[in-house]
């Protein structure tokens, strides 16, 4: 079942001066439970595409559909609310709220959703356990390693029970062990809970784990391949 779809998505920066075609007629469909990497060289348009999928940027033409709802024409306040309930974000620089503890960072999204205190507390505890940080829930970002912060970011992204999670270069700032650890967690969530992940990445370790790899070149889809990850890993 398609939960994310783009139709003839194009983005042109500086259309009146020096036009830069960041996206050219991109049409993709992502189904629930996919573990997809968007790859390509710098400037290929993968971050622009990710921003479009997350409703953070407006296309010049074309449309983005999430769970059957077109988000490109939504007004900003509705779009913010839509993101809150439907899209999870994991950023390259973690971007946790520095004055909140790990538990509060995860809880905050649910508070914005006006969930009950009991549900928020239990779900935040559960998510931090799932990412292996049950014993660090009272630590603030500055007291955690980059890997731990990114795991909190994953827990935060999952907290709102989104339709899918967009992760922009999630391992770019992590050491090898932390990156593998993070990928293990996301992979496990994908397989066991059917959580949909869409990455933009340069990291071969992420690409190796992806069951679908969309390669972009000059703003257009160059290749879109599905793979059997376990076979790839074994090979």
């Amino acid at each position, binding site marked *: 079942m398609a939960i994310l779809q783009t139709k003839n998505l194009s983005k042109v920066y500086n259309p009146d001066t020096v036009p830069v075609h960041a996206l050219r007629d991109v049409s993709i469909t992502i189904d629930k439970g996919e573990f997809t990497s968007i790859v390509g060289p710098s400037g290929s348009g993968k971050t622009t595409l990710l*921003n479009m999928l*997350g409703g*953070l*940027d407006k296309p010049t033409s074309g449309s983005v559909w999430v769970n059957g709802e077109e988000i490109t024409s939504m007004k*900003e*306040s509705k779009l*913010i*609310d839509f*993101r*809150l*309930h439907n899209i999870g*974000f994991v*950023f390259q620089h973690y*971007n946790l*709220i*520095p*004055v*909140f503890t790990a538990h*509060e960072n995860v*809880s*905050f*999204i649910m*508070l*914005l*959703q006006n969930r009950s205190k009991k549900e928020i507390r239990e779900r935040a505890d559960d998510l931090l356990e799932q990412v292996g940080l049950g014993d660090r829930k009272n630590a603030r970002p500055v007291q955690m390693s980059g890997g731990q912060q990114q795991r909190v970011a994953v827990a*935060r992204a999952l907290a*709102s029970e989104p339709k899918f999670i967009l992760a922009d270069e999630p391992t770019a700032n992590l050491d090898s062990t932390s990156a593998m650890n993070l990928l293990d967690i996301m992979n496990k969530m994908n397989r066991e809970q059917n959580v949909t992940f869409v990455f933009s990445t340069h990291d071969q370790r992420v690409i190796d784990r992806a069951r679908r790899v969309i390669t972009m070149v000059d703003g257009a889809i160059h290749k879109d391949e599905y793979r059997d990850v376990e076979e790839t890993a074994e090979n």
Partner: protein
Amino acid sequence: MKIYLKLAWRNIWRNKRRTIITVSAIIFAVMLAIILQSVNRGSYEVMIDRMVSFNTGYVQIQDMRYDEESSLDNSFWYDEELRDRILNADLRIERMAPRIETFMLAANHTSTRGSVVFGKNPQKEKKFNDFENYLSEGRLFEMNEQSVVLARGLAERLQLGVADTLVLIGQGRFGMSASGLFEIVGILDHPVRQLNNNGVFMALDTAQHLLSAEGYITGLMIAPVHERQTNSVASSLKEELKDEELAVYTWPELIPELLELMEMDLATPRLLTVVLYVVIGFGFLGTILTMTLERLREFGVLLSVGMQRFKLSAVLFIETIFISIIGVLAGIAVAWLILVLIDPIYLTGEAAQAVIDMGFDPVIPMSFAADQFYRQGFFVFLVAVAVFMFPLIKISRLNILDAARS
């Protein structure tokens, strides 16, 4: 809401030193503003308090023509029925004292002076002021007694003392001749300078008889339970007496010139306060500006993950208010402490003598009027609102992607 308060509170302490400096600046401004005004207002409050308690009352009822022509012809009938009506008009009325007042010539055997004769009920007057405590010689008159208490200044001018006889000559109600001989039973150092120079005080019924105005008074002094009830009590009385030829005044309406004088004297400290707040406001703006600009990326992320702009603005507003509240409360506390410690400032030497000559104690009392404290809070709140415009505009125009990249 709790989470926004928590977020705002922690945000302001991200950079402790910066917040402490900003809060200190607000404390300094609030403290200085309060002390400046307190010193200036203290002396006026003593004057006003004396005028209200000795002369006008918090509320005063007069004949509607008396304000234009302060003549006995414009006195009004005051009996038990009117008294009960007034008392029942507002249950917050605590005390009332009827008076009759007129100009007369006061004379000894060789000279004459202009004087203001007051007919008072000593028992009721006691509830308004400590009139009796200002007696420096003799005793207070009693009702139905053909005696007077003379203000010190007038007594000295007429060279009269206790047990001497005072001649009063004047005009009673509707042109009736009014004159009489009165035994001086006491000399009073009246705290209101003008009255100390020309005041003659006698029993209300004695004065009414002298002035052919039995049953009539020129003013009814009224005091509510609390001073703050003055206006509402006056409103109730105006409503009750709207069909009568009576006028109800509050004390500021009766002594506007004193209030105007105070306002003029307060203009300088107020101007200084405005300048102070403008300077502090720029410092405050600097802090909020930095707190905003250094967190643009964080704001971008919060908008990305689903926080509405107005909620983000609310957090910034709470941060601004938190800094203001800490500064204002601490500033008020420090100012209060300083005022308590220095109140009153004792004058010495020539300055002290000059003040004594004017009929006041040789001290500069501090004012502890509540409004000068909470007004500072209001001004700082206005500054905070003005300062908050920057983050408000910044957040409303924030481009999520640009912010996230910053």
